């Protein structure tokens, strides 16, 4: 009983401290997007939140958070308990992507090793070069139907990558959410500096904006269903809320003493 009372008091003190900090912390206009992810295979459900303000992005999921500072060219990965913080620079990420490319090359070489002739291997090399020299093609097709999800009536689209249908996306116009394109500037900035937005949901948002002309309007995702090889929905992400809000600047401030990127990245 006594312990409970102490805990309650402690929580109250901590809460007041945070509230006080927020009160004194300057805040800026922004957008808070909350999404619920479901893995159909495991039944696992997770809530993910993206906070946008100017060119700053913060994503939160469970006990992890990520701050993308395009202005500093850095991404900070925060996790608790710990707490811990790891700092990745844009060059680290470029290196990581390069390693990814290398892994791809090794992977394809292993496939090429099974090619029966030198000619076949040359053919594969040519194919790899062609694929590597360009980004993959993304396109959306309208299914011609709408779906009501909560308070949103969204239009159903399918998304193809290189002609393969990978997901179904249900979208509404940005205006239906009282959003402007400038409200999502943080995603665009992050994409430019780090190669991609810091969550798959945000990447879908960017992708839709890039394809606004073919879709006919600036669309925002309400639901994304990713299909697996058997044609079933494997992952589902659904918009829970989107709100214009004042976001404290502290939300985008990395804690002091952030560790640099692991040696495994820089040493390779």
């Amino acid at each position, binding site marked *: 009983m006594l312990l409970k009372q102490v805990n309650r008091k402690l929580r109250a003190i901590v809460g007041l401290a945070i509230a006080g900090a927020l009160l004194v912390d300057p805040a800026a206009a922004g957008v808070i997007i909350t999404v619920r992810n479901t893995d159909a295979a495991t039944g696992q459900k997770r809530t993910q939140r993206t906070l946008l303000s100017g060119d700053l992005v913060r994503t939160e999921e469970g006990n992890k958070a990520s701050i993308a500072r395009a202005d500093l060219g850095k991404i900070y990965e925060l996790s608790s308990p710990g707490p811990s913080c790891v700092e990745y620079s844009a060059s680290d990420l470029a290196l*990581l992507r390069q390693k990814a490319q290398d892994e*791809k090359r090794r992977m394809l070489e292993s*496939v090429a090793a099974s090619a029966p002739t030198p000619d076949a291997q040359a053919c594969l090399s040519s194919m790899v070069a062609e694929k590597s020299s360009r980004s*993959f093609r993304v396109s959306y097709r309208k299914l011609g139907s709408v779906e009501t999800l909560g308070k949103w009536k969204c239009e159903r689209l399918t998304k193809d990558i290189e002609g*393969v249908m*990978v997901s179904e996306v249900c979208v509404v116009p940005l205006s239906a959410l009282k959003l402007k394109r400038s409200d999502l500037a943080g995603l665009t900035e992050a994409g430019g500096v780090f190669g991609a937005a810091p969550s*798959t949901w945000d990447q879908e948002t960017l992708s839709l904006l890039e394809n606004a002309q073919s879709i006919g309007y600036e669309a925002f995702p309400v639901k994304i269903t990713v299909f697996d*090889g058997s044609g079933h929905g494997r992952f589902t992400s659904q918009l829970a809320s989107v709100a214009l809000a004042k976001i404290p600047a502290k939300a985008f401030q990395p804690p002091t003493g952030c560790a640099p990127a692991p040696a495994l990245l820089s040493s390779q």
Partner: protein
Amino acid sequence: MVKKIPLSTRLILTVALSFQSISLVQAAVLRVSQTDPACSRGKSLCYPTIQAAVEAARGGDSVEIEPGVYREKITIASKNTSPAAGEDDRIVIAAVTPDTVTIVEPGQSDKPDDDKSPHASDREARGLIMIHHSRYITLRSLTITGSKAAGIQLRGDQSGNLGIHLERNRLFRNGSRFDEGGILVGPGNSGTVIINNLVYSNQGSGIRIEGPAAGPSVDGPSASAKPQDDGGDEPIFLVENTIHGNGWNGVAVDASKPVMLVNNAITANGTADASEGGRVGVALRGSNDGLSLYNNLICGNRLGETSGEVFAGQHADNRTPLGTEATGVLATPECASSGGVYEAAAGLDGRPGTRDDDFKLLEAGTGHLPSPAIDRGVDPLALGLDLHFDTALYAADYAASNVRPVDKDINRPEDYDVGARELPCGCTNVCFSQCSIRVDPATGSSREVCAPSPFWDPSTQCCDSTTGQVDERHLGEAMTACPDTRVQNPSFSLCDDTDGCSAGNPLNKQNPTDPAEICGPHFRFGTLDPKEDLPCNNHDCCYETCNRTKNECDLAFNSDMLAVCNQPVSGFCATLVPNCIGWTVSYFDGVVAFSGSAYTNGQNRSCQCCLNK
């Protein structure tokens, strides 16, 4: 010392040996042909008329009638009259080929369009085929038409017979206005078996069984020969007949002796005007507790399905449209019209009462139920009928021997069809010859299911569908030996032999320099654990699933990989998503181009086949 045999003893032995030699005379086959010149001279056991062959036939003989139209009245009299005569002495009078022998009333045409003379207006003394004072006679596979009296008449009382079998005959357009129709059975005639006959469009009743007091009897009060009906209470059996569209009743029973009706389709009778004598399916005049009915379909008869106390004796599982005739009679509304029972009763020419009338049962289809005759009969063995006659009789149907039962409807428990036509199953593949029918209860549509033939064990053998040759299975070479006929090797453990994205592939390993490992499971495509649900593992499994195509495996692999790349993720690992998709796009192309041998090896491991294909 040699003891002499007394003369009296020698005489007895001589006489005994003489009788023995008589009994050892082989049964003869007597041919009937209108075209073979040898037959016109009555030589070589060959005869130009059926009557001539019948007169020559002795106990145990067969009369084989070659195709043709025979314009003759036939009398079968005083055959097997010896008290010792039995089943072994049965005289079989049959068409060589079913449905090719037509017996027509002299002066009548076998074609209904040519039939200008009306049916008899006066009482005829005899049927077109008349049997009297005889035992153990079989008439089989004959078409009998145009008679001015009954098509087949078994005389009764003093002229009666014993053990007459009428099998697989077609009787139509026979009869007179005195209730003579297809088959007329006089009083007595114990052990008569009328089975698998088509009896339709006759003027009187399809089958009439007279009693001693019934009138008007066509048999005279006395006859010169000794009556042959010493069969006691041996019943008269009507089994698996189709009795349709006759003028009076389908079956009329005047007899007081036991009569069993089993698996008969008695439909649409009573077509003649007026109502004297009845226009129903089954009419019983008087009372007969020995009349028993099992699994008959009695439907659509003009003035009712039954008259008299038809169900006073034993009965079970009979069907009528309303089911109100007696307790236990089952209501079957779909049989009220012939269209609910037969596919096209009037045959190809669309005219009822002609030779091509076809009583093939209606199969299930969209919007209608299968014929209520399908699989609604009873196994005659269950009724003990094998104690009375050969089981081969009811294993046949009108058209062929040894065809019953066929399970056409898995929703119905019994396999025998009601009536003279057993609906055949359509399995033509010698390796998959066991046919059954599955009916979709939702749509009513049916499809035939062909199961492996009894001689073939698919788990260890393969079967050549052309020759039926059975061979041991061969493993490990399916893609070269039998790519089109390969089947899953049941002893192969599916998906236990996968190695993710192939051994040594960086996307499999716990490699700290591998971005896929840095980001945890997010971008992992495979592991060495075959149970993991990951794209490479699933792809390996697909390659090793017999008869999956390479294309479908590769496409599923591509989608699986893209799903891994597009799974919800946040933080810096999300910035690798474009790379992940890039890997997928290129890797997929590589796999499509160069994994042919992996696919072939997988199929060879999982499939088996016959080298004789």
